[in-house]
Every structure is written in structure tokens, then in C-alpha cells.
């Protein structure tokens, strides 16, 4: 079952096209990564899904409820963290969370107490005295406190130190393990690789890749270093292998394709030694991020 079903979701700001009609299906219990360069339309899509923006075309159903007509009921079960979290500077962290709790009908304080301990945040200081990282923690607590069925987080690790990032990763894994769903955007490929089951890459307001991490890994480039018993001159490379350097019996090549085909080929040649590196998603993502002919350029939408 999909917790988010979007069909042809589009958004225009006058002549500027921020979203060009995307289809999105986010499965339940998934940690779903939303990737793309600045201005790709990630934030626009997320803001539509929480009812902050009205789509120019298309439709979206979130948790089985249609947007925007049922956005209030949707918000009851969704936790949202905006990209650049802004909070009431005159309030203490505790008062801000108390307001959110009261607006949601109460009952969040046991979870708030747990999250406060996990994120180690002083809630009795005014928000104006918080650092950027502390504001981010408070925004995350406000999004997580009511134990929502769906979390929509726009670059949640921004301004967090590595220890707190790790805490957040643990929290998000726990959320998914409980059958709840996380949709988050990020530019940090390592965290996407670490956390996500599924990734959507968006550019120029269009989805250009929608795949599982496993499927992406199988298409990612691996670096393979070979030491041959004989000269490399007679070596015939199979499809998917590209030689990068060759010196006497030492060959370095890049490999794209199924690993079993690589292993079968390695068995067929006389090897002294072999090193197979992990799949490098960085290169794959970088290719998606780069402008390519035939794909629409970034339209200058919000990031």
C-alpha cells in the first residue's frame, strides 16, 4: 500500500515551472529518499504534500486522503520539517512544543521527554538563543513528537553534528521498523545510501530516476584492480568493463553491471590478485545531477 500517491503533480509560478507533472508512489514503512540538485522541485513537491502549496495540476492522495480537501486530517498524521526551519524566536523550546502538542490535541509529552533525552536539547531556553543546530533539533522534535504515520523531512540533517545525525538515523530506522513511513530529501549521498530503501531523483521539475537502492547499486560503477599472471595486452574486456589503466600485468578497470557476470569473467582469466571495490553511487548520482541534453534544465524553482 502506498502512503503517498501523486499523479501528474505540477506547479507553476507564473512563467516558472517548478514541477512538471510528477508521478510518485511512496510505499508504507519505507525510508524514501528524495534527491536532486538545488531548484529541482523537491521542496515544492514536499510543500504540496503537506498542503502549504496548491498544485497547478495533478492530484495527490496522502494516507488515503485527497489533497487539498483533507489537508487538516492529513496534517494530523504527518510530521513535517521544512528545509529552512523557522520557529517563534520569543518562545522557549518547551512552550513551542506545548503549543504544537495542544494544537494536536495533547498526549505528546512522553515522546517529547524521550526525544529531548535522545537529542540532548535544553527546552527552557528561548528559541532566539538557540544555535542553528539546536533549532533544527527542536524542529525535528516538533515533527516527531506526535509519532506521525508519515514523516516528510526536507534536508533534516542540515546543521546537525555527526553524533546527532547518527541519533536521527537511528530514530528514522525505528520509525520505519514500526511500520511508519519517512520521505526525506537530502544532498548527502552517504546518508541516502545508508538509510533509504527507495530513491527518487528529480531534476528540472521531473522525476528522472525512481528505483530501489539495490537496483541503483547494481548499476553503479565498481573499481576493479587486477594483477594478471601474463601481460595485459591480450586481455579482452567483457561488456560493462572499461579499462582505466594498464601497466605490465596490473590493470585497473571500472565495472558496471551484475556482479556475477564480473565474477564469471574473472574466473576465466589467469589472475594473481584481484580487488573489487564497493559500488560507487557518487558517480551515478553525479551523472544524474549533471545537465544532460534532452533533459529539461532546472527551472529556478525553490530548492
Amino acid at each position, binding site marked *: 500500500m502506498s502512503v503517498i500517491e501523486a499523479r501528474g503533480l505540477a506547479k507553476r509560478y507564473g512563467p516558472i515551472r517548478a514541477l512538471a507533472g510528477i508521478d510518485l508512489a511512496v510505499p508504507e514503512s519505507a525510508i524514501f529518499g528524495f534527491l536532486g540538485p538545488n531548484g529541482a522541485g523537491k521542496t515544492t513537491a514536499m510543500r504540496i504534500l503537506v498542503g502549504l502549496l496548491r498544485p497547478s495540476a495533478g492530484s495527490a492522495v496522502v494516507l488515503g486522503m485527497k489533497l487539498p480537501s483533507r489537508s487538516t486530517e492529513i496534517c494530523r498524521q504527518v510530521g*513535517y520539517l521544512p528545509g*529552512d526551519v*523557522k520557529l517563534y524566536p520569543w518562545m522557549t523550546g518547551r512552550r513551542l512544543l506545548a503549543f504544537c502538542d*495542544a*494544537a*494536536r490535541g495533547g498526549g505528546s509529552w512522553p515522546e517529547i521527554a524521550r526525544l529531548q533525552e535522545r537529542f540532548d536539547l535544553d527546552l527552557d531556553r528561548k528559541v532566539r538563543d538557540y544555535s542553528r543546530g539546536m533549532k533544527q533539533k527542536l*524542529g525535528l522534535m516538533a515533527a516527531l513528537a506526535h509519532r506521525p504515520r508519515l514523516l516528510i523531512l526536507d534536508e533534516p540533517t542540515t546543521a546537525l553534528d555527526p553524533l546527532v545525525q547518527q541519533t536521527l538515523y537511528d530514530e528514522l530506522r525505528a520509525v520505519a521498523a514500526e511500520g511508519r513511513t519517512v520521505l526525506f530529501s537530502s544532498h548527502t549521498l552517504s546518508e541516502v545510501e545508508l538509510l533509504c530503501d527507495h530513491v527518487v531523483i528529480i531534476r528540472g521539475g521531473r522525476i528522472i530516476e525512481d528505483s530501489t537502492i539495490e537496483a541503483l547499486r547494481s548499476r553503479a560503477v565498481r573499481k576493479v584492480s587486477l594483477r594478471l599472471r601474463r601481460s595485459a595486452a591480450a586481455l579482452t574486456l567483457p561488456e560493462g568493463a572499461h579499462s582505466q589503466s594498464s601497466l605490465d600485468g596490473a590493470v585497473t578497470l571500472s565495472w558496471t553491471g551484475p556482479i556475477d557476470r564480473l565474477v564469471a569473467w574473472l574466473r576465466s582469466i589467469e589472475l594473481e590478485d584481484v580487488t573489487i571495490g564497493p559500488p560507487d553511487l557518487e558517480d551515478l548520482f553525479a551523472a544524474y545531477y549533471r545537465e544532460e541534453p534532452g533533459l529539461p534544465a532546472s527551472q529556478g524553482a525553490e530548492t
Partner: protein
Amino acid sequence: MISAALLRRTLRDYLALWLGAALFVGAFVVLFNFAINAIPRQQSAEWLELPIVRRFITALVGADVLELSRPEGMLSIAFSHPLVWVLLIAFNFTLASGALAGEVDRGTMDLLAALPISRARIYGSISAALLLMGLPLCWMVWIGARIGVALTGAADVRMGILAIVACNLCAVYVLVCGLSLAIAAYSNRRGMAVAVAFAIVFYAFVINFLRAMWPALEPLAWTSFLRYYAPLIVIRDGAWPWGDMATLTVAGAIAWSAGLVVFVRRDFPAR
């Protein structure tokens, strides 16, 4: 139509400002009582015969200055005094713009609109706060007058008639609420919301004031909401200005409804 949590938060956020404004208005009207009692009657009659003073006061209170002969006539000036207007309107603009356009401007609307409070309830809660704080502020003029009358020992002041004037003032406030909320609901910038609302109120004051000096402007008088607020006529006739109050309230309700439609349908862009 309102969220208790948001209403409580808004009342608390603006409580200090409201207390300051209420005390200032009340204290000003009390002092105004002392001031009008300190001026000898003969001297004030001489001033009122000066054409410029006569026209100025007519523009403020909506009727000829000669009607000021009753004791509450002089007090009616307090209900139209520029200082009272400035405080009432500044409070109104501060709350309406801060709680709607200000939320968008600061970026905190992302937090508020992602809570399970419908946009209509957000708008309704801010409107309720504006009325719950603003209407008592209007009545502070009457309370100040009452305290002033008690302290100065002025006789024959009909506080009941002044209560009708206070109700008329409340109707003006309701209209200003409707206008300021409609403008704030449409705006992304708090400063812009205040500037547009101020321009409308300024226009109303200018037209109302100038028409007393320059009769050629009379055809435009209906476009100024102050045309429907004439304390001295209420005091002279001793009757409820139902027509004026209804006009103000209906116009306020229309502006408020337009703001609601805009607020419910609009986008909240990222900041």
C-alpha cells in the same frame, strides 16, 4: 471555527502590548477629563467660535461644534481623538499583520500550517483574538471617561449616551479588523500588509477631515468609514446609529469574508 490552542497562544503573545495600549488609552481619557474641566467655560466658548477650530472639531466628531454645549459633548472629542485612533489602529495592525502576514514573512507559517488546524480555523482564531483584545480597548475610552467623570466630580454627564458612542466605535473597529485581516491574509510581507492597511485608513481620515473644510469632497464621503462614525450626532440625538453601525459591520464582514477566501486558497511560499 477557532483553535483554542492558537487563540490562547495569540492572546498570550500580544498580552503585554494590549495591556500597554489599554492603560495608555484609559489614562489618556482620564487626563482628558481633567483637561476639559480645567479650561474655563467662557474661554472654551471663545475658542470654539474660531472658524478653524470649529471646522477641525466638526471633522473629528461629525457635527457642528455648537452641539458641544452638553457636558458629554466635550468628552466626545476623546472618542475621536487622534491619539486614541493611533493606539487602536496601531494595535489592530500589529496583531493582524503579525499573526497572518508576519507568520509567512518569518517562515513560521510552515510550522503553523502543518499542524492539524484548518486554514479557516487559523484565520478564525486570529480574528477572534483581534476582537477579544480590540473591543475592550475601544471600551477603555468609555471606562477612562467614567473614571475621569468620577474623579473630577463632573455633573450631568450621561454615560449611557457615551456607551452608544463606544458601541459605534466598536463597529468602526470591526470594519478595520475586516480590512486589516483581508490585507494580511493576502500578503507575504508584514511591512507591505501594514503599509496597505495604513494607506486605506489614512485615505479615510483625509477624506473625512477635508470634506468638513471643502464641501466639494462630500460625494466621496461614503468611501470613508469615518463617515459612519459621528459621536456628536449620537449625543445630540440620543439615539442608536443603527444604520451607521450596520454599514460598518456589514462592510467589515464582507472584507473579512474576502480575506478568508484568499487565506484558505493561497500558497505559502518557502522563505
